């Protein structure tokens, strides 16, 4: 069995306080390369908290998280930040584009932080990403001049800037109309199919979650269900799906 991209073992996250709040309890998951996973559940169930843990934005109180088989619990802030920069891409409900910069510059921000390419190459890559999403004309427009759907596509393009292993999306369609939301999920699907990127999306939209290959249901911070979505395209060479955890 190939090493999963992301694997959790007994991950629990408790917010300390006078009355400690358990966000996520004893989560065991393995997500393989090129999987398209949706995390669903009622609001307040801990699905976003789980996504932040998977995205190394938050640190588990207990348990371990492995990224490409590497234990991340021993890493410090600096190393975690570098992993996020290099291996992960985020898309949130709100686009979080820098409002003063045009779309092209926004996409270049993570590349410039990583600094592995020269300026010209970064610009080329950013243009390519915009073109992939039909946003050629938006290159020199600032987020305020774009529609909600376009902004979210720019945000996806930015998440892809450093060619990440995993895209983590937190209610990426929450602020979009149905058509634009569907569009974003189509983009994710394309990424999974063509580039083998792993996409993990939190959503509460049943229809959109039906577009993914695997649906993980969270209730009260624990995995309630984890199963294949039938409509997901079967592809050769796909890593074996983990069994139902519960």
């Amino acid at each position, binding site marked *: 069995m190939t090493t999963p991209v992301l694997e959790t073992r007994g991950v629990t996250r408790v917010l300390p306080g006078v009355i400690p709040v358990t966000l996520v309890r004893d989560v065991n998951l393995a997500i393989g390369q090129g999987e398209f996973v949706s995390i669903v559940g009622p609001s307040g169930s801990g699905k*976003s908290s789980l996504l932040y843990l998977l995205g190394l*934005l938050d640190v588990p109180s207990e348990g371990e998280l492995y990224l490409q088989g590497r234990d991340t619990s021993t890493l410090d802030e600096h190393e975690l*930040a570098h992993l996020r920069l290099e291996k992960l891409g*985020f898309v949130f409900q*709100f686009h*979080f584009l820098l409002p*003063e*910069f045009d779309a092209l510059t926004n996409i270049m921000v993570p590349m410039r*932080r*990583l600094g592995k390419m020269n300026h010209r190459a970064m610009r080329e890559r950013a243009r390519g990403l915009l073109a992939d999403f039909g946003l050629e004309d938006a290159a020199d427009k600032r987020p305020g001049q774009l529609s909600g759907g376009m902004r979210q596509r720019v945000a996806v393009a930015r998440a892809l800037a450093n060619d990440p292993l995993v895209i983590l999306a937190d209610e990426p369609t929450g602020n979009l109309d149905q058509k634009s939301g569907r569009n974003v999920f189509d983009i994710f699907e394309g990424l999974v199919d063509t580039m083998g990127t792993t996409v993990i999306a939190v959503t509460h939209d049943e229809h959109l979650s039906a577009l993914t290959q695997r649906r993980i249901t969270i209730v009260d911070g624990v995995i309630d269900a984890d199963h294949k979505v039938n409509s997901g395209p079967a592809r050769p060479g796909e890593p074996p799906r983990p069994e139902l955890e519960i």
Partner: protein
Amino acid sequence: MPLALDIALTHLLTRKRQTAVSMLGVAMGVGFAIAMAGMMEGFQNYFVSKVIDVTPHITMKDEFRNPPAQPAAMRFGHGALALHGLRPRDELRGIRRAQSIVSSLARRDGLAIAPSLEGQVFLRYGSKDVGASLIGIEPDRQRLVSNLENDLTVGSLDALKTSANGLIIGYDLARKLGVKMRDTVTAVSPAGVILKMKIVGIFRTGLINLDGGVAYALLKKVQVLQKRINVVNQITMRLKDPDAAGKVAAAIERRFRYRTESWQEANEGVLGVFVIQHAIMYATTGAILVVACFGIFNVISTIIFEKTRDIAILKSMGFEESDIRSIFLIEGLAVGILGSLLGWALGYGLLQLLGSVKFNVESFVKLEGFVLHSTWVHYAIGTVAAMASAAFAAYLPARKAARLRPVDIIRGAA
């Protein structure tokens, strides 16, 4: 351009007005600091150079710092004995063996020396009586210890020797009396001697004390006038290196025991005022910079408040605390740098403006306008202070911004 710098400058450029206002605050602090420092140091340097130029660097007087010890106190120094009503013996005033002191000190390198007798007289001309301090001098020696000769507006020092009872008086004193060159005034001494004296010179130094209350005559004449034949009560000295006056004066006093004052000691009062002036100047400009600090703190805090979402996404993308901190520190420093450059212009402009102001003031010295001292040091001090306060003002909010946890913000924004 480095990414942090790019983001920082963009933040500032999209808030032009706020940025300009806080920059102006810094500029005011720096500009006023430069102008005030130039003004004060200008005046102080002018005064000091005047003093060094015009007055003797060291003056030995016919008195001692401490009254002589009483025989009874010497005998029972540590005894349980209290004596009241003791009266020290009246000394005959004057420096004893003055000529030998003069000739022994005259051998020192870089030191010119002249004996003199100073005493109060009344100068009478027509219906006017004006009190003045009359100094008896030997022109050939005096010429070496003071600039009196250069300060003469009319007449000459040698005229003292050639005329019978020559008198050189200060410009303001002459005006008070209403006398001109070659007029004859009557000098009356406390000893009761009356002498007709002819004005053979008028000097003007710019120092109010001298111009308004001092006259010079030959030493011999003054000794006659004061009935103190062969007495000298002041020995004045001039050094090549005026800054060494304090040390040299102390050494001379140790040797001859007469009270010997350096020019610094003689002008202690004024020089003390300068210290207070400096303190006031730094306090004032410091206060302006503190206000400027609040401006910077305010604009950076506002930007950070507006930019929490940006901070969250940058951190989730892999920016670290230090990256975020440097973005906002750069913003503060940029305001500091641009503000202090603007402050240079402001300070320079203020100095030009002050330089063009004309007025007449007579306090310590006569002034007809501001004496300004402009040096790059003032500009540098202003900038260093501005940068330090800008960095401090930006650091506090920047540190707070760097510690923001992206998860908290993203949760809130959703």
